[in-house]
């Protein structure tokens, strides 16, 4: 398996993959035309033809033996610079009267654009049949090496929005208790509209005033800042990388946005540049290895470690997958945080 930028030729394969993604992945709707544009934007992003405001990098996980695509992951260089990016900020309001001895803390939701300009990790999807081994980690973390290599293309703060709580039928208790009253449509439709890039309707329809969560259902309140059960591993993975929930949630399903300073991301901070050397895999921990190229970026997993002369051993298949020769420079980061 290797991670590489998506290419024009991947269109049909991407559509097949998107059909399996389900409604939770708002940025990967199975719409041919939109996915075609998505590929184009990604190609133009890697080539540097797009401004930061428009740049959106899409990577695919490729089975190097069969050539099949089995997953995607993306990076939006800076969200909200083209059209508003909305979150609820979870706040506290205190109501207190000494005279009658009352003290109350209420939770509030403020509609904000505070995460405007941040870099977003997005579009993570791995085909269910390949959810094993190091695939999930490779797919999600390999892009962090791209951030480490080319930080000037991204923002100082990186976020990821995690899928919120919903049941088997795709019903979100948060949506049912709040958004539904203002949108008068199903969660899945609102999610689709938002996913296809139309956000102006949000400003038009969302409550403009802060909302007291005391007026929401118990299930809705409990969903605030919580992830869908299927997203728990992703959350744990991001938290291990240094990402934290800071009180921003999705306006539709109240799933948490987690944040980290780019330079503080574990895989960025712990990554090192070294020379590749042809050789057998030695004992060692599983590492992400990237070829450091801006456009033909490739990442594979390899077991090993940097030797005393500052080199990392890769076998022929790995060198091939990375499209490099022994002696070329690579960036290495342990797949898992050490500690």
């Amino acid at each position, binding site marked *: 398996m290797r991670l590489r930028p998506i290419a024009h030729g991947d269109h049909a394969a991407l559509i097949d993959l998107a059909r399996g993604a389900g409604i939770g992945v708002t940025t990967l709707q199975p719409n041919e035309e939109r996915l075609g544009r998505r590929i184009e934007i990604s190609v133009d992003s890697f080539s540097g033809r797009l401004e930061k405001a428009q740049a959106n990098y899409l990577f695919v996980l490729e089975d190097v033996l069969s050539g099949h695509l089995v997953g995607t992951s993306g990076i939006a260089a800076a969200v909200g610079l083209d059209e508003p990016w909305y979150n609820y900020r979870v706040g506290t309001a205190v109501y207190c009267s000494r005279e009658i001895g009352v003290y109350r803390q209420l939770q509030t939701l403020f509609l904000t654009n505070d995460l405007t300009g941040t870099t977003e990790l997005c579009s993570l999807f791995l085909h269910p049949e390949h959810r094993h081994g190091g695939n999930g980690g490779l797919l999600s973390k390999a892009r962090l090496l791209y951030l480490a290599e080319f930080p000037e293309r991204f923002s100082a703060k990186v976020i990821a929005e995690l899928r919120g709580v919903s049941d088997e039928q795709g019903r979100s208790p948060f949506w049912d208790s709040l958004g539904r009253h203002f949108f008068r449509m199903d969660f899945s439709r609102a999610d689709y509209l938002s996913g296809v890039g139309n956000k102006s309707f949000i400003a038009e329809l969302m409550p403009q005033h802060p909302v*007291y969560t005391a007026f929401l259902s118990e299930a809705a309140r409990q969903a605030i800042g919580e992830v869908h059960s299927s997203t728990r591993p992703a959350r744990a993975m991001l938290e291990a990388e240094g990402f934290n929930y800071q009180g921003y949630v999705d306006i539709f399903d109240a799933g948490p946005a987690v944040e980290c300073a780019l330079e503080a991301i574990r895989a960025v901070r712990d990554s090192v540049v070294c020379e590749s050397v042809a050789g057998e895999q030695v004992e060692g921990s599983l590492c992400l290895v990237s070829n450091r190229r801006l456009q033909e970026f490739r990442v594979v997993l390899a077991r090993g470690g940097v030797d005393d002369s500052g080199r990392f051993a890769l076998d022929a298949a790995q060198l091939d997958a990375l499209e490099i020769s022994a002696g070329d420079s690579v960036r290495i980061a342990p797949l898992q945080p050490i500690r």
Partner: protein
Amino acid sequence: MDRLVLRPAAYSDLPAVERIAGASPVGVTSLPRSRDKLFDKIASSQASLAADVSGCGEESYFFVLEREHDREVVGTAAIVASAGFSEPFYNYRNETVTHASRELGVHHRVHVLTLCHDLTGATLLTSFVLDPAYKHGDYPDLLSRARMLFIAAHRQRFADHVVSEMLGLCDDDGHAPFWDSVGRHFFGIDYPLAEFYCGVKGRSFIAELLPQHPIYVPLLPREAQEAIGQIHPFSRLPCEILLREGFETERYVDIFDAGAVVQARTEEIRTVATHARATVVGHPPGADGTRYLVANLDLPGFRAILTDAAFDSERGEVWLAEADLKSLNVTAGGSVVLAPL
């Protein structure tokens, strides 16, 4: 028929007023179940009646309805010259905001309650309580509308708008559906206790605890939504009278129980608009006439009654029976204000 006379409350009325207060629902905060507060209310009224007033300020006027033959008090009603004189007078403004997206073809109105002090400074009618034995016939009109005659007779003492808070929905156990869904979150106490504090404490705790942000009505439980603008059976009778007087409902509701807050421009209140001053002409009892509310022009000695009288608007004269003159404490040749029932 019993002859009833409306007059300012005196200190000697305290036991009777206390009895009436005790029999009223908890939401009637203008009649707190506290002898001290009721005493203060009478004292404030007496002071206001004695004061030389040219604008409307902190005065309040507290009246009782007395059965003439045995001097039994059967009702109370009051006027506060300026609501929220020393602190804001809070209400929710009943509003809708439009949420529309042309692109999605969506256009709908969302109902919100916004805290406001729009009615601060208006003259406030309060404390309408009447012995159920007198709820039929014209008696309720006498108790409620004699206040309008008082306002008309002493117009400079009152504001250009008059408002009155109707008691909202609340069951016998003191559960108010609106309070339970809204106020309780902010105040953390039961509705009866909140109303009690409201009557006996200052109102500054209200400013501290009321929601700063508007309440989106669609988020509330159905019972709470349905309670907005509703009127407790206790207030139906006074509300009916005020609506006949031209008061408008719908725009404002109470912050505790969401009962309707009705309001009118002073000049457009029917009794005020149709009232007249007249010189009294005495006549023997038994003569025919039309039913009128009649009041004298005194302040401390204010009296209002219902009677059949003959009013000659061209000459500005009204014919009243001897019994009426006695009830009103006026003599032939004196002046009164009157309005048709």
